[in-house]
């Protein structure tokens, strides 16, 4: 199942922090998929989160799906699952135990402030459908360090495709990719896609740069 969370974070960094914190406090297993999502509800545009969580029966369809390249998106898997996870929000995650300031959504259940619960639901739905969202936690994440070939990125992690900005063709399997130890793929049409761009040394690197120049930066 997909748990949506929304603390009204205004930045991606804050949302990532929340993701890590919640994954730890919920005791989620390795292979959990955690994403950030830009949402617009009644208040300010902000960043909500989603986490794949075990269902009541202990099955973790989403994690299994995300871990295998070319399989159906998480949402599809969930719909097919025999235990009807969507109808049974009472999984191992107890929404009532979450911090009160947090909006949360699991299946049809909602907790927390209304607009944040709505943001959480939007995040969970996007994750479940594989339509949008940026993956912070995913199977193989910790193996994506240093410089790898694109084939290695696909083999080691849940990333299913590498797409290079401005190019229509996929990169060669042996194309080197400097991970910068910071890889944040995205959901695109149900698949986990890493956006890359040309980098120094004839390599590729993720299109998302780890420490972007802040607005009104001191470049000195």
């Amino acid at each position: 199942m997909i748990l949506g969370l929304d603390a009204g974070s205004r930045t991606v960094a804050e949302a990532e922090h929340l993701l890590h914190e919640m994954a730890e406090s919920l005791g989620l297993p390795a292979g959990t998929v955690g994403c950030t999502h830009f949402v617009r509800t009644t208040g300010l545009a902000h960043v909500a989160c989603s986490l794949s969580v075990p269902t009541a029966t202990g099955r973790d369809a989403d994690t299994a799906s995300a871990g295998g390249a070319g399989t159906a998106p998480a949402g599809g898997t969930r719909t097919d699952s025999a235990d009807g996870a969507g109808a049974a929000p009472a999984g191992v995650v107890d929404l009532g135990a979450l911090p009160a300031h947090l909006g949360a959504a699991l299946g049809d259940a909602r907790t927390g402030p209304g607009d944040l619960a709505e943001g959480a639901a939007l995040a969970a739905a996007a994750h479940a459908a594989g339509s949008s969202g940026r993956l912070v936690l995913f199977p193989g994440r910790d193996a994506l360090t240093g410089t790898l070939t694109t084939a290695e990125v696909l083999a080691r992690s849940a990333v299913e495709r590498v797409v290079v900005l401005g190019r229509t063709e996929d990169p060669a399997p042996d194309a080197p990719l400097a991970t910068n130890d910071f890889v944040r793929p995205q959901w695109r049409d149900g698949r986990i896609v890493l956006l890359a761009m040309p980098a120094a040394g004839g390599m590729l690197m993720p299109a998302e740069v780890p420490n972007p120049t802040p607005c009104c930066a001191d470049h000195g």
Partner: protein
Amino acid sequence: MGHGHDHPHEHSHAHPHDHSHGAEHAGQGDLAPVVDLSVPDAELSPGELSRRQMFRRAGLLGAGLTAAGVLGTQGAAAAATQRTRTSTEPRDGYLWLAGDHHIHTQHSSDGMYKVSDQVRHGNAYGLDWMVITDHGSVAHAKIGVDKVNPDIVATRKAVKDTLVFQGLEWNIPAAEHGTVFVAPGRNEVATLKEFENSFDGSVKGATAGTPQNEALAIAGLNFLADAVRRRRVEDALFLANHPARKGLDAPHEIRGWRDAQPSIAVGMEGAPGHQAAGIAKPNGAGSGRGFYDNSPSADSFAAYPPESYKTFGGFDWMTATVGGLWDSLLAEGKSWWITANSDSHTVYLDTSDRGPGGNLDTDGRYNDPIYKGVPNTSNGDFWPGYYSKTHVGSREFSYTAVMDGIRQGRVWVDHGGLITALVVRARQTGTGQRGVTLGDTLHVRKSAKVEIAIEITLANQPNWAQFIPALARVDVIQGEVTGPVSDKDVFTTPATKVVKSFEVKKNTGTVTFTYQVGAVDRPVYVRLRGTDGNRGAVGLLGASVDPAGPAIDVFGDADPWKDLWFYSNPIWIAPRG
């Protein structure tokens, strides 16, 4: 001088399908009809008439009065004798004055140079006009905006052949940064200060992308227009800076600014500054060219593609994409012009350092810079004029003439001194007409044949990297004017593409090309782009649109001197009937 062209005044915002607000205000920076007594009162717009009456009351109207005499800091004739640059030589009836509207000083939290440091460098590197644009902030609004003015005034006196405007880098509410500047005058500081205190996104805590903040941005532009209308300042302009850098300038916001005040909100940076930021480590910052290294945030316009956060041949995605956002505005018939600037804060390989001690928040500025003796390789900027130039066809050497030239779109931009001069004329084929130039509209009868005459003076002399750039190719980009869009967030247009490419087969002197538009049945526009041919790629909208456009810049290895482009603003061709 500069009046040899055929109809210098009638074209203000006379673009097809667009008559919103522009007509009355557009002429306010252009005094010629106001002071030209052969133009009867009845033919003046209400704004022009009130200005003529003001001059009458002041006893100024009549013999000897010219726009330069009233408004210019120095007469054009004096300028021509004192100045030795190519820009002092009129081309196609205009002085093409090179400038930069995006420059920071020690009055910015991330700046360090004195006004005179920037202006003396900009002057040496060939700039005729510069705008000092320190960041809007609480400290700047309270102290800096006042403190910078005497420095600017002193520098105007010391460096006579470069016009120095006071402006600010506005934190546009709900959006990115933008240049706001005014013509010098008694109220320039008061006007800028009131503007910043009332409408700066940072000062007002209005940076988030909310409808309320978007409305505050429009209110700011309305304030500027009102200041001009009430003669509080002679003129004011706004241009959006690094518009696609963080995805904050949504298409509907850009359209909103422009449509609210088309005589104030006139364009955007086609190319951002920080052009040295992509130079590879260890010699350079090894960042994204233009410091374009951002990713979407919550306030970003969600539909912008990931490519929009990058530069292409040093240009912002909105401009570099043929058939993209800029073209979608031009295809509406909207006047919206591009510029290229330094965004100079801290200069690549400069050996100075920010002055120690002091407190920006309480002093409004950093202490004067000191010599450090160590070239700073992580700085990503060039001195103003060193690499990026915005060339403005001006009727004379004066503040208001530069502003008017920008407003009219008589502007082309280049990097690295790729070319020296560009003269473009759209004219009816075979009639012997002079036709119209950049930013203007050629009106022809339906089905008349039209051609674009292009004359390019090649570099012919070394740039500031000490080599003579070689122009390899010139592309003609043409689009159909299809009128206003219903979806204000559209950022593509289907009928714009590269229609002709001319190979440049010589390295010195002047090259001329003629592009035959052919019989014009529907309104179209044409713009130009040129390249050194070093880097290229199929455009983002496909080879049928742009087979050899600018390539995405390599992150951490983008030598700006090895990837040079020029861009012109468009000319419209409007058939009657």
